[in-house]
C-alpha cells in the first residue's frame, strides 16, 4: 500500500514538472500558423523547420558553442581553486577562518544585478569584453563560494586519520591530495561540478552584459525572436528545447553521483 501512495505522489509531481516542458516541445514541432490559429494538444502538421532554422544559422548555433565553452571553463576554474581552500577549511583552524568562510558565502548572496555594470567597466578596462574567459571569471563570483561550501561538507566526512596515515607513509601533501584524497571525495567533486555547471549554464544577466557577438550565449540569442517582426513562437520554442538538451545530458552522466551524493557522511 505504501509503495502505491509513493508512486502516486511521484507521478503527480513529475507530471507537474513535465507538462510545461512537453508544451514547449509540442510548440517547437508546430508551424507558426498552427500555433496562433488553432489549439492542438499534438502537432497536426509535424515540422522540423524551427530546428532547421537554428541548426543551419551560425548566429544561432554558435550561441550553444559559446555557452558550453564558458560553462566548462568556469567549472574547471571553480573546482580547481575550491579544492585546496575547502581542504584548508575542513582540516585546519587558522586566523580569521570563520569570517573568511562567511565572507566567501556573502559573494554567493550578491545579486548579479548589483555587479553587472561594474563588471562591464572592469572587463572593458582589461579588454576582456566579449571573450569566453570574461564570462567564466564573472561566474566564479557565485560558483567558487558554492564549490568551497559543498566540498568542505564532503571533506569533513573523511576522517582525519586517513590524512595522518598517508603522511606517516611518506606521502607529500600534493601526491596525497591527488592520489588518495580526491578519489575519496569523487562524488563530492561530481556534485560540486554539477552545481557549478548548472548555475553557470542558467545565468543570463552577467553573460549577456559581458558579451556582444563573439561569445554571446544562447540564452541571450533567444531574445532575438521576441524583437523580430512579430513573434516567431516556433523558433523560440525550438531554441528553448535545445537549451534543455545539454543540461539533460549532464544530469544523465552525474545521476549516480548525485544519488550517492552526500552519502559520504557514512564513511
Amino acid at each position: 500500500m505504501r509503495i502505491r501512495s509513493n508512486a502516486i505522489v511521484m507521478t503527480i509531481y513529475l507530471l507537474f514538472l513535465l507538462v510545461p516542458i512537453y508544451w514547449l516541445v509540442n510548440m517547437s514541432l508546430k508551424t507558426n500558423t498552427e500555433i496562433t490559429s488553432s489549439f492542438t494538444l499534438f502537432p497536426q502538421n509535424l515540422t522540423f523547420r524551427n530546428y532547421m532554422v537554428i541548426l543551419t544559422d551560425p548566429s544561432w548555433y554558435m550561441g550553444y558553442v559559446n555557452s558550453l565553452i564558458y560553462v566548462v571553463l568556469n567549472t574547471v576554474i571553480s573546482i580547481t581553486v575550491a579544492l585546496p581552500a575547502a581542504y584548508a577549511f575542513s582540516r585546519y583552524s587558522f586566523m580569521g577562518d570563520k569570517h573568511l568562510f562567511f565572507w566567501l558565502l556573502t559573494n554567493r548572496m550578491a545579486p548579479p544585478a548589483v555587479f553587472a555594470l561594474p563588471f562591464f567597466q572592469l572587463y572593458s578596462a582589461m579588454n576582456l569584453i566579449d571573450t569566453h574567459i570574461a564570462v567564466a571569471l564573472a561566474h566564479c563570483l557565485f560558483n567558487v563560494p558554492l564549490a568551497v561550501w559543498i566540498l568542505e561538507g564532503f571533506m569533513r566526512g573523511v576522517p582525519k586519520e586517513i590524512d595522518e596515515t598517508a603522511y606517516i607513509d611518506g606521502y607529500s601533501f600534493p601526491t596525497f591530495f591527488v592520489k588518495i584524497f580526491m578519489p575519496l571525495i569523487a562524488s563530492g567533486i561530481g556534485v560540486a561540478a554539477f552545481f557549478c555547471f548548472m548555475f553557470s549554464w542558467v545565468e543570463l544577466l552577467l553573460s549577456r552584459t559581458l558579451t556582444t557577438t563573439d561569445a554571446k550565449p544562447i540564452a541571450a540569442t533567444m531574445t532575438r525572436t521576441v524583437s523580430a517582426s512579430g513573434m516567431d513562437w516556433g523558433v523560440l520554442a525550438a531554441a528553448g528545447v535545445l537549451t534543455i538538451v545539454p543540461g539533460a545530458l549532464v544530469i544523465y552522466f552525474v545521476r549516480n553521483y548525485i544519488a550517492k551524493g552526500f552519502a559520504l557522511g557514512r564513511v
Partner: protein
Amino acid sequence: MEKTQNNKAWFLVLPVLALVAFSAVLPLMTVVNYAFNDTFGNNEFFWAGIEWFDEMIHSERLRAALGRQIVFSLIILAIEVPLGIFIALNMPKKGFWASLCLVLMALPLLIPFNVVGTIWQIFGRVDIGLLGHTLAALGIDYNYTNDPLDAWITVIVMDVWHWTSLVALLCYAGLQSIPQAYYQAARIDQATRWSVFRYIELPKMKGVLLIAVLLRFMDSFMIYTEPFVVTGGGPGNSTTFLSIDLAKMATGQFDLGPAAAFSIMYFLVILLISWVFYTVMTNLDREEAR
C-alpha cells in the same frame, strides 16, 4: 572534528581569495564609488555624500519593492521546503525508477532562467498556452498580464516548478546517507512513521536542509530573469521585485548614483538576513554536537 591550528592553511585559501577579490571586491568598490558621487558624464565625478542613500531610504518605490520581495521569498520558502522534503520522502530508493526520477526532477534546474520564463509565458497564455487555455475553458477568469493576483500566482507556481526539485534532491541525498541500521532499530522500537521522520530523518537532513534553505532564500531574494520575462514586473508594479527595480534604474534610466546606493543597501539587507540564518543554524549544529 578537532581541527589543528595552522596558519599556513592560508596558502591553500589564497587562490580562492585572489579570484574572488578580483571578481567581487573590485566591482564592489566601483559600486561604492558611484554611490557617493554624482556624475554628468565624461568620467567627471562630484562628491555627493550620503545624498543618494537619503533619497533611496525615503523612496516609496524602494519600500514597496522591498515589501513585495520579502512576501515573495517567504511564500517561496513556505511552499518549497515542506514540499521538497515531502517529495524526497516519496522518491524510490534505488534502481531504475530512482535514476529516472532524479534525471527528470533535475531537468527544470538546468533550464536557463529566461527559458524558464519563456516556458511559463507560453504555458500561461490564454490564446496559445495549455494552462491558460484550460483555465479559460473551465470558465476561470485567468490572465496574468492584467490581473495582479494571477500574475503573482503564475510567478510563484513557476518558481515552485523551477526550484522545488533542488530542495528535494538535496533532501534525498541527505536521506540516502542514513544507514539502514537506524531504520531497523526504529522498527524494533515500533516507532511510528512520524517519529521515524521526526527523530531520524529530519535531524539527519539538517545539514543539507541548511544548504537548501539558504540557497533558496538567497536566490529568491535576487530573482530577476524569470518574472521579468513572464510579467515584465507588471501589471503595473505588482511583480516588480528588488532586482527588477534595480536593473530598471541602472540600465534603463542610467541613474547610476541612486542605483548604486540602492545596490549597497540591497546587498546589506541580504547579508544581514543570511548572517542571522547562518549564525542560528551553526549554533544549532554546535548544540547538537555537544
